[in-house]
């Protein structure tokens, strides 16, 4: 099994990395057309799928970029491509919009929409697998910064007239899972940075006359962190391929495992990195915090780790029952003697 990037994936990722190395951000990415990576080729994009975007997002995470790469570029790009509609101008997306729909008029408050501070249009996945698009000029937009510095906004719709697509079977679930996976891929890049910083710090920082990395307690904490990130990396690649593939059960399984991991082991890994640094790790000035916050934002958006744990548990129960029907059943026993 080989998850190394294809030439095309590497090319996109390298372009992102070069922009960030040169201190660039949204303007430079936009100029090079990189924010259109997930858009159809006919409209100047690369037609990239979720797995194609992973290496680029890892670069975004490593750079902790403030550019709204997921919220106002990749995610709406994937959704619009899938729904087969496209129009000029930057869009943002809410994968789980809770709105009231009266014909083509939408009413509701979307409290946290990443990228809505810079977009012209808002794309919403509706529960019935339709896509709704409204110009943000007809909405009330209250911009703010997320904890990791990226822009977002609260969007208030009061009978806003939307363009609503026909039903695209499976659309909403697929985009929601893609959203989880894209943010997780970016968190993976941030976690690489966290790992490298912590490893380097343990080697150079001395206390009690010796490097921190010579203490076994810290070595073992670092091994746990290393191990968790390797496992998370495997789940990111697995989920990304499942988002692009036709096997829905496997997508649900891998994406929920990923989100559960992100909100569990990865949140703890980020916290452990701060702990291993000591006091410097809790200062605003030190770069570690930027990466930690990026991990936390990915954890908080698009459904909680508990939501996904519960979803995974339901899937396991359904699959087990289906497999069990094919096999002779045990006696159902009360679990109390």
């Amino acid at each position, binding site marked *: 099994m080989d*998850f190394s990037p294809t030439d095309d994936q590497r090319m996109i990722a390298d372009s992102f990395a070069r922009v960030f190395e040169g201190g660039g951000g949204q303007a430079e990415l936009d100029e090079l057309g990189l924010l259109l990576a997930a858009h159809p080729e006919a409209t100047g994009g690369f037609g990239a799928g979720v797995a194609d975007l992973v290496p680029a997002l890892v670069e975004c995470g490593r750079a902790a970029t403030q550019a709204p790469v997921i919220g106002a570029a990749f995610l709406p790009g994937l959704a619009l491509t899938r729904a087969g509609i496209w129009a000029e101008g930057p869009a943002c997306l809410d994968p789980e919009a809770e709105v009231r729909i009266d014909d083509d008029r939408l009413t509701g408050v979307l409290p946290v929409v990443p990228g809505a501070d810079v977009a012209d249009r808002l794309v919403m996945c509706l529960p019935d697998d339709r896509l709704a698009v409204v110009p943000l000029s007809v909405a009330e937009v209250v911009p703010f910064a997320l904890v990791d510095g990226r822009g977002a906004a609260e969007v208030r719709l009061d009978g806003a007239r939307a363009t609503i697509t026909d039903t695209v079977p499976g659309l909403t679930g697929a985009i929601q899972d893609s959203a989880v996976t894209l943010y997780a891929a970016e968190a993976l890049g941030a976690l690489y940075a966290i790992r490298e910083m912590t490893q380097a710090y343990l080697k150079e920082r001395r206390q009690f006359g010796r490097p921190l990395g010579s203490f076994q307690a810290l070595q*073992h904490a*670092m*091994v746990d962190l290393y191990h968790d990130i390797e*496992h998370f990396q495997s789940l990111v690649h697995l989920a990304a391929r499942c988002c692009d593939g036709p096997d829905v059960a496997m997508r649900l399984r891998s994406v929920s*495992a990923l989100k559960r991991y992100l909100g569990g082991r990865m949140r703890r890994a980020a916290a452990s990195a701060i702990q291993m640094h000591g006091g410097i790790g809790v200062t605003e000035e030190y770069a570690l915090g930027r990466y930690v916050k990026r991990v936390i934002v990915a954890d908080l958006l698009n459904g909680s780790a508990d939501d996904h744990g519960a979803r995974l*548990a339901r899937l396991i129960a359904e699959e*087990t029952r289906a497999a069990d029907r094919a096999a002779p059943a045990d006696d159902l026993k009360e*679990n109390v003697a």
Partner: protein
Amino acid sequence: MELFYSDADLAFRDEVRSYLDDALPEDISGTFFGYGRHSWHQMIRWHKILADKGWVAPNWPEDHGGTGWSPMQQYIFDSEAMMAGAPRLRPFGLKMIGPVLIRFGSEAQKKRFLPRILSADDYWCQGFSEPGAGSDLAALKTRAVWDGDAYVVNGQKTWTTTAQHADWMFTLVRTDPDAERPQQGISMLLIPLDSPGVTVRPIITIDGDHHVNEVFLEDVRVPADLLVGEENRGWTYAKYLLGNERVSIANVGQSKAELALLKRLAANRKRGNVALIDDPVFGMKLADLEADFLAQEVTNLRMLSQVRPGQDVGALSSFLKLRGSEIQQRIQELAMEATGALAAPWREADRPRTDDYGMHGWLNSRAFTIFGGSSEVMKNIVAKQILGF
């Protein structure tokens, strides 16, 4: 992981499935699906069936009786066999001393031992640990002194798994007590367990079973042709062997099968009025285990795909063993929880199999994070060799 199977892999999987369907005896698969544990005799029967098919040593080079399968094919075979309820073959001959002899043994040793490992005519055990040399294996004291025509071996080995069934023991002995570093004075000898001076005594473990033994060696004479490789180079061979052992302990295929069995158990137990598998608290524990297993499965495949046959897996094996052993323990832990109070009685003969499921497994699994190198030692190795501390 079928997502990653090529068309050739899918065809191979179908071939393996139809073979298992025909060849795996029903009493053996029935033991597994009846929540029982395979006996040593069932394991040997299955070993011999696989040997007839030529599939018993997928990890060996083809010219020594291996299958020439890719890492993915080995994984497919292993997980299909485990999911079908086959016993896990013991690693001592196939995964431990076999590969060492292939890489470091003499031509005569290869000719003499390898075919009999494949056929299970010889059964092997591992003489490494001693009462004073556990995690600190290089502190071993069993002495071998050259005496004209043979080594004379004196000492004591312990935790020797299935020595009660074994014909041979590959044994680490100290041949140079004055070497600068303790690792430098160690050799590897192949000792027939019917030699005069060998005494095997059972150690009963916490689960009440007889898996392991003490082996006493008193003036045991071992001829020169039973020395592996060169004298005082035994530590090198042992490290190579331990790498293979640790990868085999990580055993994703077995975890996959046991996890599926655990789910079936949970679907057939009740908590209050609902099946245990629908209980939200138990369900969340299962979900976390599933997530960790999935991550381990993909990580193992990702990493082992990069290892060439016969290549020293080094610190990677410590890395894979750490999580693999923990996942197996957690499967047993949830199986014990699922069985609940019915797992508590210590019944020997009269118990229905399902009623003590989990408890013995949980107790037995405590050893998984200890044998083959404790988790703490695995972390030391990863810290030093992968992280550079």
